[in-house]
């Protein structure tokens, strides 16, 4: 584990061992519920969750790299730890997800600042070490940039759907990708969020602590606001329509296209018997082979694995994508026509 200085724990509170931290400071959770001075910290923790639920980043008392007062630092850490206790007591998963994401964004800001820090080498080294320890991303400073091996970059960048993250839109040289401090930190955003949410999910849920009830109840009410339901138009996305057209014309649809069509329709609940006739017009149609392959995809024969419909990104690579404006913001054909409300 990393050895952290005082202000580093405030910046990256998720790295601290919560129980140990409280013990070191000489507090128990119960005290926060009863002691009127400490009770403010529960309100502070509640605020921290509220801000996160709103999709914003919690504005801390930390000013730049330095804590304004000695007292601000522990307050900062306590409010984080107490927020986790409140979330665990509420048991509301949507809130945990939102909180983890907001905390990740907050940590991102500090990591970025530390990486770009030219006056304090140790701060930069710590940021590099956090990124390496937590996410096994080895970055190296080269002039104004941070470089990372292409293979390492790809493992993270494939989680992004914006085109700017595609390798082709990066400065690539000699097996390395060149990134600014901002991009370096942005690259691990998802992993940082996952790291924090896993830590929260794996934390033990305490039994209700007197003095915490009000805030917990308010959180449960709050989380109701975020429940969503979806409606579907039922129309097929253009890639699927295109594939069906090709087959209807008796033209050859490549293997990857047949895979897409079959997995899509299977996911939509159609049966192998309903799907098989679609392929009748294919130049190389063979009923036995078609049924065998469809059953294989459905998982009813062979290894039992049920194959899922490829992502839009994969279909683009296979030149099977014929995106229309309605395709914006979806990452898999199965999401086409679904609207959240």
């Amino acid at each position, binding site marked *: 584990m990393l050895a952290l200085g005082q202000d580093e724990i405030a910046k990256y509170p998720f790295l601290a061992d919560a129980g140990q931290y409280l013990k070191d400071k000489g507090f128990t959770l119960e005290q926060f519920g009863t002691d009127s001075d400490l009770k403010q910290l529960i309100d502070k923790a509640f605020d921290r969750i509220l801000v996160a639920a709103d999709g914003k980043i919690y504005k801390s008392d930390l000013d730049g790299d330095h804590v304004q007062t000695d007292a601000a630092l522990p307050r900062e850490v306590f409010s984080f730890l107490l927020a986790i206790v409140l979330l665990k007591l509420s048991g509301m998963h949507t809130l945990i997800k939102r909180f983890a994401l907001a905390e990740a964004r907050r940590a991102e800001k500090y990591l970025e600042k530390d990486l770009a820090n030219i006056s304090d080498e140790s701060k930069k080294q710590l940021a590099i070490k956090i990124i390496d320890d937590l996410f096994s991303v080895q970055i190296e400073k080269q002039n104004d940039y941070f470089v990372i*091996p*292409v*293979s390492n970059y*790809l*493992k993270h*960048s*494939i989680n992004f759907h914006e*085109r*700017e993250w*595609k*390798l*082709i*839109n*990066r*400065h*690539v*040289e*000699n*097996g*390395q990708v060149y990134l600014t401090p901002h991009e370096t930190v942005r690259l691990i955003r998802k992993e940082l969020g996952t790291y924090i949410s896993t830590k929260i999910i794996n934390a033990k849920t305490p039994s209700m602590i007197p003095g915490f009830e009000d805030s917990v109840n308010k959180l449960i009410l709050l989380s109701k606001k975020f429940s969503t339901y979806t409606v579907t138009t039922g129309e097929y996305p253009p890639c699927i329509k295109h594939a069906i057209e090709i087959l209807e*014309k*008796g*033209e050859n649809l490549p*293997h*990857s296209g047949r895979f897409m069509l079959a997995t899509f329709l299977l996911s939509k609940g159609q049966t192998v018997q309903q799907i098989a006739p679609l392929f009748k017009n294919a*130049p*190389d149609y063979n009923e036995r082979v078609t049924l065998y392959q469809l059953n294989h995809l459905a998982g009813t024969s*062979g*290894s039992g*694995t049920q194959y899922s419909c490829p992502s839009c*990104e*994969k279909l*683009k*690579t*296979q030149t099977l994508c014929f995106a229309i404006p309605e395709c914006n913001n979806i990452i898999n054909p199965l999401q086409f026509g679904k609207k959240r409300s």
Partner: protein
Amino acid sequence: MKENDIKFVEDSFKKYYFVHFDQIRVPNRASEREFGYQKFNSGMIRHISIKSDNELHLLFMQNIPSDVYCSNAYYSFPNMPMNEKEWKEADLIFDIDAKDLNLSCRVNHTVSICSQCNKISKNSTQCLKCNSTKLEKKSLPCKNCIDASKTEILKLSEILIDDLAVLPENIHVYFSGNEGFHVYVYNSQFQQIGSRERSELADYIMFRGMIPETFGMKKFKLDRSTFPDFNEKGWRGRFSKYVFGSKSKRSKIISELIANGYSSFQKILDDASENIGVKIDPNVTMDIHRIFRLPGSINSKSGLTKLFCQNLSKFDPYVEASFLNDDSIEVIANCPIQFNLKNKKFGPYNNEKVAVPTFVAVYMICKKLATLA
């Protein structure tokens, strides 16, 4: 394929394998790889483990396969079903096929075989006899096809070496035995990356998915200094050469690009893929569980051998990869296209009985353009 044709082709293959066992070796770390094979008119048998040259030779002698394959992936248990194999890593692999290069010569040496009535013609859209649109295309690649493929291989190697830090000695090029080449990359930083990462790598190599900003074009606040220059590394440098042509034209062309606007620039980028992108088959590169034709084995689509290319620039597959004997044999050939094998011209044949060397007979039978007389 007819029974007696199969027997003839199998006999020819068997003779080749018997005489050329020195060419058929298991690859490195064979015990971690999956093997598979096919026999004529029959399905694929895969998930086989083969540990030594002897075991491999036994497979050839016992089964006389039409095609033999081996994975580029390494597994803990290569002979188990796919989801129990425990994938470890895979060599990076690229398939460059003449049929994907949009070459103008293709139409001259491609025939269509009607799936309904077996009529062979050079018409590519529908059968002249029964009007069916279910056609199987067979091509007899020419020198231009091979030269164009080699150009793609050189483009690919440049990107692998300069951009992706692959060592030249770790790039091995093989003629696939039919119309293209397989490029293997060993011991690179990419051994352990998965399918989605490989798909990204394929887009990079094919020059696909660019946004104008990467090449200096913006929607607002345009700045001439952000446009790429000739001496830049990677795609910005290559794109400069393509779009500016010469250094003296750079300034003038930047002004034009700015005047024409953002979406026109996007179009230039997309069009550039066809010209400067490498024409690999992305599906092959991103598939980490595929089995590939084993070097040294014969490709049943042609009767030619998959062969390591020691000297790519001089390599002529239609001379060097043809190993079958030249015993004369009579066939009924229906091959409307002339082709070259071992420096000799053959055809065109119009449904006629001819005596040809075995390597020519097998080539045409494998292409479904002849049967034994």
